[in-house]
């Protein structure tokens, strides 16, 4: 199969960006991506944009704002959407654009402006990513769904609230070193444990941030990638899985079927296994989600995700470093941008360009894991240097 390479990466600062509009955030990411690739935008043939929510942007076709502002028209562009996994859908669509032969240089942009809406409104919109007809009426929110997953995991495997908090402590430790992170400060286990309850057993520090931001990558066909730079990172494995709308319909509440499916596809396509992954970014929208991801991705046996993080095995120097960019937890989660930002981070790691203190040594294989909703869509992408 023809290979698709990443030849440019760009990332805006994540945070409460009252200083910038959606289109301006996207521009920041595209400008740094184009500069990184050292390719004029006029050479780019096609674009895919991920913006998760019409409700948060108060507009239909918000991708048109991006295309217009970067001056892309009249070239092809469309939007990809799967809630918090929208960014990875755009990456996938970008890959398909190239693999199909439609184009050989494709820009993938993810952006979201979330902080203009009030917290109850954001909670409402995100909660409705689940089964809004039958579960949302019980006040089920995003944290509520993951709280139920956490409670089931705790009951089945003895996972503790301290282990959940350990995920937050780790991710904040690395986020503090990431200049693009929303919340650049370390937290203690005590602080995480004593924060207020959002949805029992999840506390404030078990939840990711509501952020504004954008990210972009430039994808190229093998021939073009090799011409453009000596060190393209290859998008070698793609997996996409889906899961039930209602949490109640999950056979096992402690696992996301969509992740297991997506991971299987991606590992097979890349011809590797979980033991070959040197660095991973996983969808830690809530701390429990990271622990479930370890298990669903095969980084540890079922039920051992809690001990894995507790024993530091997902820190740099451990068995498999995870979310050393700060994760959604500390770097932030502008939903449409997240999947693209994950690709940016893995490429950065594989190029050896991560900031001091958060670069994984000799990283040749990286994995991104991006969940839409509470497991309705999951994308797993594998990136390699070779």
């Amino acid at each position, binding site marked *: 199969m023809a290979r698709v390479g990443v030849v440019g990466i760009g990332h805006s600062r994540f945070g409460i960006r009252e200083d910038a509009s959606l289109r301006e955030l996207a521009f920041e990411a595209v400008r740094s991506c184009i500069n990184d690739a050292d390719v004029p935008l006029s050479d780019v043939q096609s674009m895919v944009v991920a913006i998760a929510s019409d*409700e948060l942007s108060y507009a239909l076709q918000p991708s048109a704002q991006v295309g217009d502002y970067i001056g892309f028209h009249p070239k092809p562009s469309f939007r990809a959407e799967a809630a918090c996994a929208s960014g990875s859908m755009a990456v996938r669509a970008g890959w398909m654009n190239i693999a199909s032969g439609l184009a050989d240089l494709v820009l993938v942009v993810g952006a979201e402006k979330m902080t203009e*809406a*009030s*917290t*109850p*409104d954001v*909670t*409402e*919109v995100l*909660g*409705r990513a689940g*089964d*809004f*007809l*039958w*579960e*949302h*009426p*019980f*006040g*089920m*929110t995003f*944290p*509520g769904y993951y*709280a*139920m*997953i956490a*409670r*089931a995991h705790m*009951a089945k495997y003895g996972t503790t609230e301290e282990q959940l908090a350990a995920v937050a402590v780790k991710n904040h430790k690395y986020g503090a070193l990431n200049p693009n992170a929303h919340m650049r400060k370390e937290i203690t286990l005590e602080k995480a444990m004593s924060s*207020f*309850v*959002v*949805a*029992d*057993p*999840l506390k404030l520090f078990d939840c990711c941030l509501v952020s504004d931001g954008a990210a972009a990558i430039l994808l190229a066909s093998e021939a073009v990638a090799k011409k453009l730079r000596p060190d393209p990172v290859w998008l070698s494995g793609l997996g996409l899985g889906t899961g039930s709308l*209602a*949490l*109640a*319909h999950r056979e096992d*509440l402690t696992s996301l079927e969509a992740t297991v499916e997506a991971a299987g596809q991606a590992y097979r396509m890349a011809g590797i296994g979980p033991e070959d992954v040197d660095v991973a970014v996983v969808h830690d929208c809530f701390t429990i989600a990271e622990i479930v991801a370890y298990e669903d991705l095969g980084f540890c046996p079922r039920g051992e995700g809690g001990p894995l993080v507790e024993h530091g095995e997902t820190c740099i120097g451990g068995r498999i470093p995870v979310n050393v960019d700060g994760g959604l937890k500390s770097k932030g989660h502008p939903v449409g941008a997240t999947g693209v930002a994950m690709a940016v981070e893995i490429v950065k790691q594989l190029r050896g360009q991560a900031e001091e203190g958060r670069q994984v040594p000799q990283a040749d294989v990286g994995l991104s894991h991006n969940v839409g909703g509470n497991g309705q869509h999951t994308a797993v992408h594998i990136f390699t240097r070779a």
Partner: protein
Amino acid sequence: MQFRDFSLLVRDTKVRGFAEGLERGELRASRCVGCGAVHFPPRSDCPTCWSGEFTWEPITGTGRLITYTLIKVPPRHFAPDLTQRAPFSTYVYAPTAVGLVEMEDGLRVMGWVCGVAAQNLHVGMALTPKPEVLDDGRATIVLKSEGC
């Protein structure tokens, strides 16, 4: 930002009889006329045999709590300034635990936990799903403990 009241959504579906049943004190699943599969939440269309015909099947007996939470930060439609009250939800944000019980036949029912404080809940405990008519005449589903 305004969202449609979810109850109106149920009333605009082919399973609108569910909401009517609930108000009469009946908690019901749908049974596919084509293949006999029982679905909860109810659905008019069967994804197994593709039949569009169904009958109502009462859900009775006691289930086992498989997970639960207590939501402290509510979504917009639970915010105190809500003007339109939802029929099978509580209308103000009052911390009540939400649970998911699994019945003997495998059906799972979500509801408000009644009669047990959140800190006393545990996975595996017996709870009985029942319709409950609220003070405002609207109906919801509660998961009742013994003596509730």
